């Protein structure tokens, strides 16, 4: 196979582009896709201070690398979720990435700083682990960004992530979740602006970016996520993509272009009805926000071993 651009030896075939690329022109393609997402959805402006949510996985480290390459001022925030060795290893990948590039990485440890971990939160709140994890991360990234003076939180959600969430929400016709599924959430009182610059790149492309850029990342799957619903949706979409390349991109990007504007008004009305949590001040439709309820229950609960929750984990939470 030859690179579509320079006719040199290709290292990756991308059926959805009906093309193959050498490393140099694959990098160019990825940069252009990210720049286009940032421009099309007005994600970032010159002078923005960006807080990148990093996990040690391929997507968040590729995102951090791409944003720095594109000239943005971007610091990382890692949240230690207390998922045994998996969390220890994940932090190691983030720390090495930051150290090698002299980037700033902030670290929050759930167990040390807040008195709980994700396995315990899942047991204490009877949530599936991915739901407890998502709630925790959203709250802490929001508050860290506001406290740290960052104008934007950037997350590594890629095209596969967004297509899978869209697929799940569509199967349930969950209008509330569909209305919120945007690549940019503007800043509002109590919420920083949130952006997903990788929505035009697939997981295969972000993984290839890391391999070709010599970025070490954690390849092993989170033990809490094994068998979750999200993975099932991705497998179904990839089975279709294999037969019909480009399906995931058209499914998600056409939804954003054609359906999101229709759904937007309902979501605004719902958000404008939010009050403030009496404990932490975060926006919430209740007296006490879901995060503070989770913290209260989890810190009262005996610590739960990872293995106990990993065994019973079978389905994921919605985003």
């Amino acid at each position, binding site marked *: 196979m030859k690179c579509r651009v320079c006719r040199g030896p290709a290292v*990756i075939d991308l059926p959805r582009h009906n093309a193959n690329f050498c490393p140099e022109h694959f990098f160019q393609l990825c940069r252009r896709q990210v720049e286009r997402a940032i421009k099309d959805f007005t994600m970032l402006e010159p002078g923005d201070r960006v807080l990148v949510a990093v996990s040690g996985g391929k997507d968040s480290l590729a995102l951090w690398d791409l944003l720095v390459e594109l000239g943005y001022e971007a610091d990382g925030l890692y949240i230690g979720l207390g998922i045994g060795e998996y969390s220890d290893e994940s932090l190691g990948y983030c720390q090495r990435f930051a150290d090698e590039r002299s980037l700033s990485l902030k670290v929050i440890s759930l167990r040390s700083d807040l008195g709980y971990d994700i396995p315990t939160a899942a047991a204490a709140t009877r949530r599936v682990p991915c739901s407890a994890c998502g709630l925790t991360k959203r709250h802490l990234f929001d508050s860290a960004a506001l406290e740290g003076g960052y104008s934007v939180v950037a997350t590594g959600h890629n095209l596969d992530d967004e297509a899978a969430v869209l697929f799940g929400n569509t199967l349930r016709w969950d209008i509330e979740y569909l209305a919120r599924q945007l690549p940019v959430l503007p800043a509002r009182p109590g919420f920083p602006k949130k952006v997903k610059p990788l929505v035009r790149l697939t*997981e295969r492309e972000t993984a290839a970016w890391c391999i070709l850029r010599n970025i070490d990342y954690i390849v092993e799957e989170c033990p809490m996520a094994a068998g979750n619903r999200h993975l099932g949706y991705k497998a179904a979409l*990839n089975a279709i993509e*294999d037969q019909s390349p480009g399906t995931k991109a058209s499914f998600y990007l056409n939804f954003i272009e054609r359906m999101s504007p229709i759904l937007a008004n309902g979501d605004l009305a719902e958000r404008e009805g939010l009050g403030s949590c009496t404990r932490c001040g975060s926006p919430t439709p209740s007296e006490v926000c879901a995060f503070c309820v989770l913290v209260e229950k989890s810190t009262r609960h005996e610590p739960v071993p990872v293995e106990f929750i990993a065994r019973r984990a079978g389905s994921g939470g919605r985003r």
Partner: protein
Amino acid sequence: MRVLLRNPRREVEMKGPTPVSALLARLDLNRESHLVIANGVLVPGDAVLNDADVVEIRPVISGG
């Protein structure tokens, strides 16, 4: 050739020469969900793998 698979981590012996795409098909693995690294280098679907190669088939799907 020695082929490393992940999640869960395991090794299998496969016969070469074989194109990458054929190896994935023989192992019933979706190309959209995997990348193939031969002797430390990323390789495309038509690259031919030989018995002496050390191959990693890396899953790219994550569940978070």
